[in-house]
């Protein structure tokens, strides 16, 4: 389906090294850029959806290469989650862009996906460690997802926020499918109701036909590319276990919507309620989730291979010298309906573990091998508050230089050493 697989193998190898550079003994760290908000202050370990892509990516590499080193990296990541599991089954600091708060959605379900994919692989190998990862995911699923977020109709955004967000339900579907498969008991009731949440959020007509509405955006009713893709992934996985024409129809409608948003330089954020495109920012590392959606859909339906190639191109061409993949382009004009122009902003060029994991997971689905290639030093001209700056990243640190050092984070630390943004 995709050409240039040796380049993919190199990119995966460099991403692996970059991920290693972002770790400390408690987990993967780093500042966060996101549409909703960014957190450049708290940079310590967080157990959020980054563990979905990291663990799944390493498990995929192991299953393709049979090299135990990849399995050990998957277990090392899963051990971070086990170490950070709280007495109530939640994970410490699971709220990604919101900073160090527990109960992040869909983050906790996403961590469960990673844990259960690893448990499945270990179980197939007869490795006793499988039960520990399964039980950790089970504690989270039983106590938090089913015990707290389930309201009889779907999985709520938060215990105090009853909104049913499609992509979050889709991620939970992926977790429950794995849980059911590994002996957690029938999840059919929850799965089929959560699927209804996803199906009902799809736009049936008009300029946004096929898009998934993010109901958490209130009256704006934004259609967001990445979340449409994640919704699609949940339904495709569900279709494997509980086939339904409704799932296929959803995917058939969602694919053309996604195709329209993919460009050579990233994926448009989404669309406003009136059908105008939100062209700034364009997702880059997170486009890995859209690539994964296409790869999953291709198992059942015809998929436009040129779009998949385009997405691989986007990921590979935005991998910087230090090995990370940029988050986006256009944060300086966030929400604009026109294409952004000019140099990227700090939040654009910043590689974020919780976005790069999506690129990593998707690229590992394509890679048959990994090339161990070294990373170097990134030096990128960018802006912050409209002023020119230089972003510098090495294996040891991330820095933003303007008239003086404006930001310096030593990798692994919980907070930056310099914060003058």
């Amino acid at each position, binding site marked *: 389906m995709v050409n240039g697989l040796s380049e993919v193998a190199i990119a995966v190898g460099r991403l692996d090294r970059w991920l290693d550079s972002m770790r400390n003994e408690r987990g993967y760290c780093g500042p966060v850029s996101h549409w909703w908000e960014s*957190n450049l202050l*708290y940079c310590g370990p967080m157990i959020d959806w980054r563990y979905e892509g990291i663990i799944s990516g390493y498990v995929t590499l192991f299953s393709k290469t049979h090299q135990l080193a990849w399995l050990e990296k998957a277990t090392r990541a899963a051990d971070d989650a086990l170490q950070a599991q709280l*007495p109530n089954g939640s994970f410490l600091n699971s709220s990604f862009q919101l900073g160090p*708060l527990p109960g992040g959605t869909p983050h906790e379900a996403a961590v469960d996906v990673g844990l259960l994919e690893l448990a499945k692989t270990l179980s197939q190998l007869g490795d006793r460690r499988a039960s520990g990862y399964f039980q950790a995911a089970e504690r989270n699923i039983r106590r938090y997802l089913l015990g707290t977020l389930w309201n009889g109709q779907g999985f709520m955004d938060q215990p105090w926020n009853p909104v049913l967000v499609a992509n979050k339900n889709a991620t939970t579907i992926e977790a429950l499918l794995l849980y059911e498969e590994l002996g957690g008991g029938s999840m059919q009731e929850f799965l089929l109701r959560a699927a209804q949440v996803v199906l009902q959020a799809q736009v049936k007509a008009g300029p946004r036909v096929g898009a998934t509405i993010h109901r958490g955006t209130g009256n704006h009713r934004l259609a967001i590319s990445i979340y449409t893709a994640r919704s699609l992934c949940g339904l495709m996985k569900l279709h494997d276990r509980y086939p339904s024409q409704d799932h296929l129809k959803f995917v058939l409608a969602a694919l053309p919507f996604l195709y329209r948003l993919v460009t050579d330089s990233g994926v448009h954020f989404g669309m406003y309620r009136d059908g105008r495109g939100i062209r700034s920012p364009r997702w880059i590392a997170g486009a890995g989730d859209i690539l994964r959606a296409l790869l999953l859909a291709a198992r059942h339906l015809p998929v436009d291979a040129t779009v998949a190639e385009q997405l691989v191109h986007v990921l590979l061409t935005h991998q910087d010298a230090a090995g990370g993949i940029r988050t986006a382009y256009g944060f300086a004009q966030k*929400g*604009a309906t026109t294409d952004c122009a000019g140099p990227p902003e700090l939040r654009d060029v910043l590689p974020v573990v919780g976005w790069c994991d999506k690129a990593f997971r998707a690229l590992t689905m394509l890679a048959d091998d990994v090339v161990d290639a070294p990373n170097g030093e990134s030096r990128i001209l960018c802006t912050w508050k409209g002023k020119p700056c230089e972003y510098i990243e090495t294996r040891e640190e991330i820095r933003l230089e303007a008239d003086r050092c404006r930001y310096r984070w030593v990798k692994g630390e919980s907070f*930056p050493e310099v914060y003058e943004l």
Partner: protein
Amino acid sequence: MKLADALDPYSFEVRYTLDYVCYLVSSRRPERVGIVSPCSDMCLAIMRRLMANGCHFSVLSPQIQIAAREELGLEVDVQGYDGSDDLLVYPFSLEQGMPVLQSRFMVAAVRNSLSYKRLLHPRAVATNVMTLVRSLKKRYQISIQAGAFHPTFLLVYGAALAVAGFAPSVYFQLTDRAMTHYFFCRGSLWRLSYVVILHGERIV
């Protein structure tokens, strides 16, 4: 004690403030951090941010000690008021009448009565930060690190809210500008900020 709704640790005013407070705490690399607050949610919020640093915490009450154990699996001490903590944090607690205890360093977040909030809720915010700083200066060398929710931020954020219903693109651009450009100020506007973050070093 639970937080008043104005101090919800999930609200962005508290989250951003605590991130900045803990950045200042972290920069001192203390081995022992005392959290001077009667509110368990606030204490846990501070611990979540700093626990990866490996520092030891002390808190005001056995109830908070139990909450740390049950919710975070963390063992903390109950403060002995003996000055053994390297640094004391006051997360919105000086305004609640918490005493200023002995320590080499202090970091505090304080809600300021000389801000727009006083206009909206006259009884909600009673701390005159200028008076507080004058009082603290008898024992600490105080430096104001940042103000949050100052007039420029409010103008831009207010403009965003005003257009949210009919111009979403402008709304998102303006809110982003408010949050990235104007949330924290380090100039003299701190005097009119809703939240003031200050750092003190004990005068020897």
